[in-house]
């Protein structure tokens, strides 16, 4: 057998293992059963060693096995032992290792000299970063420096960032791009349950009878998880998938029913479902009586369009009867007029949720979270599940999906947000005391007031309240809404911008210092996915040139600034030591983390991990060691889940005579976020080489636009000309256009609006008004 034949045998073994994971007992001619052990023991001739890791890309957190040969990653297959993906992967995952080897990897530090980024030794660049940070603090105060990271940070990266900014420097100017994708999910969880992250897990899919996808193109954004829904339906033909969306997509095509609604009216639809449940007396009365309380908050809460916008909700406890009165405005006939969804469809949705014989999962992601009422719509989906008592049991699960590999594990759990600490909020003295004790810093060092969430942080940079910003693992010069303002801010002469990344991007283009970063399996780390699963990966490869992990870059700078006592670890032991220290914050049955050794052994572990056992369903006494009684929503002082009355409120900008279309933005399956990784993988780049604008064919006809012709989009923020796509992979309804944001050549975020949810601070990328013309 030659080497090529051996590699073919490897590929066959991987496929047989995936088949075995999907169809236990499957047999192949000549090969007997496909065994997992076989998959992990490739033919010796191939010289390939397989190592486990979570996938580099989305928040599903698929387990992959990466084949390493002669110091290079040469192969990828799904890990058949991973309970997440059962041996499968998606097109991005299978090509993920190619993203390590782009021709223009950053391998040395760059410092801007005479206007040009110039290579310098890493040591010199780190000296400069530390000196500039210290100089800025001295001249303008500690709140003049900021760190902006991401949900692609590993847990140790995020922990070091939090300790450096909050424990060492003493500022809460720490944010992450998860503010742009998950903040409303967090505030939804916090306001409804008092604790973040889902109560269920992916295993719910194996028990559910109905899947309702709310504004969530799961077929493209979470393809492996979507394949589990399809598999469930294949084995159980009575299972239904309902796609409730503002645009017809590949998910709609695969669904049993596609229901289109007008943008922002999801708020009214959810209320109509609750109204219908109450009207028909479909409420699970015992569950509601024992485990739920009712509340209302402020209304007409604004959109954050002005600098220094501030909002504080004022929750009031109400009765079920008052809640019923408030919902009177949401009878299905009224909501039909507002949403465009026929009353019969709204009744059908309510009947699915209420049917006592059906277990129901709801899924959502950016459609809910990138919403000027993002917190509210998260609350409303929980309201539906709580009214019928379909929550926290196998198959009954409202499930908020994430977009990044560690939006949960790092940003939400470690707390790399202005208001958070690794456990609790900065406003909570008990949480500050715990941090001060574990970090061994004076209590008064930890600032008790949050400063800026992401949009406000970039506004502060524009105003000059912030003078120094260090950006890691993210590309805000593609992803910030109303981008032109924030790009101009970064380019101002007296701002100092440091960017750590693996490739040149529009963000490194405007940096004063660029630090080359080690990527993914070039360093050790952990990520936490959407289902509370923490996954460890080893360092498998040597990073190129002087590239260094984000955590170690920050430690080097912290030491130069005199904080070496807070970061005493060696390069060899810093990951296990950080994990041990971080785990102290989460100790206890509500959030106990697995040990470092346990994480290394397993393909991920769900927290709370108590006495060697994962907690699959929180708040349910049968499964959750922290719960007292059959159901116990212990995150709230009244130990109840909170149903909130949240009304429909219109978005800040809607189509009008001058800008008559809705502009919606999002992603495609082939590309990861801003495309800085996936556009360097030829097969992914060639599949979708450039952004485009999707139009409904009737709109295209009216405007005289043919497929591929150039179209001018204009909003109040700017204009962009890009090619038309008509009836490609998706179709927006008449009066709406869609543009994917992955392409730095077509910066659609120059057109989007920086309005945000007043409670979460998360911007709405899904709705603004746009004029559409043939260019």
């Amino acid at each position, binding site marked *: 057998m030659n080497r090529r034949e051996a590699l073919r045998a490897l590929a066959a073994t991987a496929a047989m293992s995936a088949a075995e994971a999907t169809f236990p007992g499957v047999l192949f001619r000549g090969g007997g059963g496909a065994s997992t052990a076989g998959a992990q023991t490739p033919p010796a001739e191939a010289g390939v060693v397989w190592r486990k890791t979570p996938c580099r890309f989305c928040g599903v957190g698929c387990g992959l096995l990466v084949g390493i040969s002669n110091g290079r990653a040469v192969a990828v297959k799904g890990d058949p032992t991973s309970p997440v993906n059962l041996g499968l992967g998606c097109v991005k995952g299978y090509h993920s290792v190619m993203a390590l080897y782009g021709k223009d990897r950053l391998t040395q530090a760059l410092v801007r000299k005479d206007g040009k980024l110039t290579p310098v030794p890493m040591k010199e660049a780190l000296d400069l970063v530390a000196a500039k940070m210290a100089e800025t603090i001295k001249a303008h105060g500690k709140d003049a420096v900021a760190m902006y990271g991401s949900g692609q940070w590993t847990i140790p990266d995020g922990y070091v960032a939090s300790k450096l900014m909050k424990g060492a420097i003493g500022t809460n100017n720490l944010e992450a791009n998860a503010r742009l994708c998950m903040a409303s999910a967090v505030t939804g969880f916090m306001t409804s349950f008092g604790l973040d992250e889902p109560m269920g897990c992916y295993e719910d899919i194996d028990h559910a009878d109905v899947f309702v996808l709310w504004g969530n193109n799961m077929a493209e954004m979470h393809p492996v998880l979507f394949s589990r829904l399809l598999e469930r339906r294949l084995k159980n033909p009575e299972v239904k998938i309902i796609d409730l969306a503002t645009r017809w997509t590949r998910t709609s095509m695969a669904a049993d029913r596609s229901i289109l609604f007008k943008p922002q009216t999801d708020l009214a639809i959810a209320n109509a479902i609750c109204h219908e449940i109450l009207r028909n007396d479909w409420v699970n009365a015992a569950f509601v009586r024992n485990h739920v309380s009712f509340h209302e908050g402020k209304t007409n809460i604004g959109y954050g369009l002005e600098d220094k916008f501030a909002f504080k909700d004022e929750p009031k406890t109400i009765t079920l009867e008052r809640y019923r009165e408030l919902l009177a405005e949401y009878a299905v006939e009224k909501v039909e007029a507002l949403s465009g969804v026929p009353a019969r469809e709204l009744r059908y949705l309510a009947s699915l949720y209420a049917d006592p014989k059906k277990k129901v999962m709801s899924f959502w992601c950016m459609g809910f979270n990138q919403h000027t009422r993002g917190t509210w719509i998260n609350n409303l989906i929980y309201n539906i599940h709580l009214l019928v008592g379909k929550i926290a049991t196998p198959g009954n699960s409202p499930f908020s999906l994430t977009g990044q590999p560690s939006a949960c594990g790092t940003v939400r759990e470690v707390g790399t947000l202005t208001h958070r600490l690794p456990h609790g909020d900065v406003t909570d003295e008990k949480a500050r005391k715990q941090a001060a004790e574990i970090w061994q810093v004076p209590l008064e060092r930890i600032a008790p007031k949050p400063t800026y969430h992401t949009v406000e942080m970039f506004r502060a940079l524009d105003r000059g309240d912030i003078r120094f910003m260090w950006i890691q693992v993210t590309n805000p010069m593609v992803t910030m809404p109303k981008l032109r303002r924030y790009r101009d801010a970064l380019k101002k002469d007296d701002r100092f911008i440091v960017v750590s990344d693996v490739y040149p991007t529009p963000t490194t283009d405007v940096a004063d210092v660029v630090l080359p970063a080690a990527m993914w399996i070039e360093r050790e780390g952990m990520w936490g996915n959407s289902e509370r699963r923490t996954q460890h990966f080893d360092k498998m490869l040597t990073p190129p040139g002087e590239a260094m992990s984000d955590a170690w870059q920050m430690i080097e700078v912290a030491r130069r600034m005199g904080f070496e006592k807070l970061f005493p670890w060696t390069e060899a032991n810093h990951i296990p030591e950080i994990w041990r220290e971080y785990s102290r914050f989460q100790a206890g049955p509500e959030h106990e983390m697995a040990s470092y050794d346990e994480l290394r052994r397993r393909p991920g572990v769900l927290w709370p991990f108590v006495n060697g056992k994962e907690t699959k369903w929180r708040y349910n006494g049968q499964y959750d060691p922290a719960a007292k009684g059959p159901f116990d929503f212990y995150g709230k002082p009244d130990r109840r889940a909170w149903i909130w009355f949240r009304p429909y409120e219109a978005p800040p900008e809607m189509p009008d005579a001058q800008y008559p279309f809705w502009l919606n933005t999002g992603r495609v399956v082939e590309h990861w976020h801003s495309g800085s990784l996936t556009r360097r993988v030829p097969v992914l780049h*060639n599949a979708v080489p450039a952004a485009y604008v999707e139009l409904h064919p009737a709109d295209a006809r009216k405007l005289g636009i043919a497929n591929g012709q150039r179209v001018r989009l204009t909003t109040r923020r700017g204009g962009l*000309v890009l090619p038309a796509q008509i009836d490609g992979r998706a179709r927006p309804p008449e009066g709406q256009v869609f543009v994917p944001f992955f392409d730095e050549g077509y910066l659609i975020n120059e057109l989007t609006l920086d309005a945000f949810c007043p409670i979460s601070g998360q911007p709405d990328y899904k709705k603004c008004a746009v004029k559409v013309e043939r260019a």
Partner: protein
Amino acid sequence: MPIKSYLAYPVRGQRDALTAALRRLGGCDVSCEVLPAENRDLLVVVTDTPDEATEAALQEALVRVPALEGLALVAVVGEGEVEAAGRFTAGVPEETGHESA
């Protein structure tokens, strides 16, 4: 080009037809190995192509096989040739049509 392996699902009752059709895709430049499961309507397919153009042609041919209900990519195995491309951007706003408000 990398070697790829797939799980192929036949249209009901057409497993043998699918096996034969997929095997016919192989040729002097293309290796297309087909391993049918004995106890399931399921096939493992392993492809190996010499260049991008051949790979693209094979991809097109694969999805046109009438007896194929579904195809799931499972593994991509390279031989150190996983060199990826560089930055894809026009880079200059004017060239890509960015306009001020």
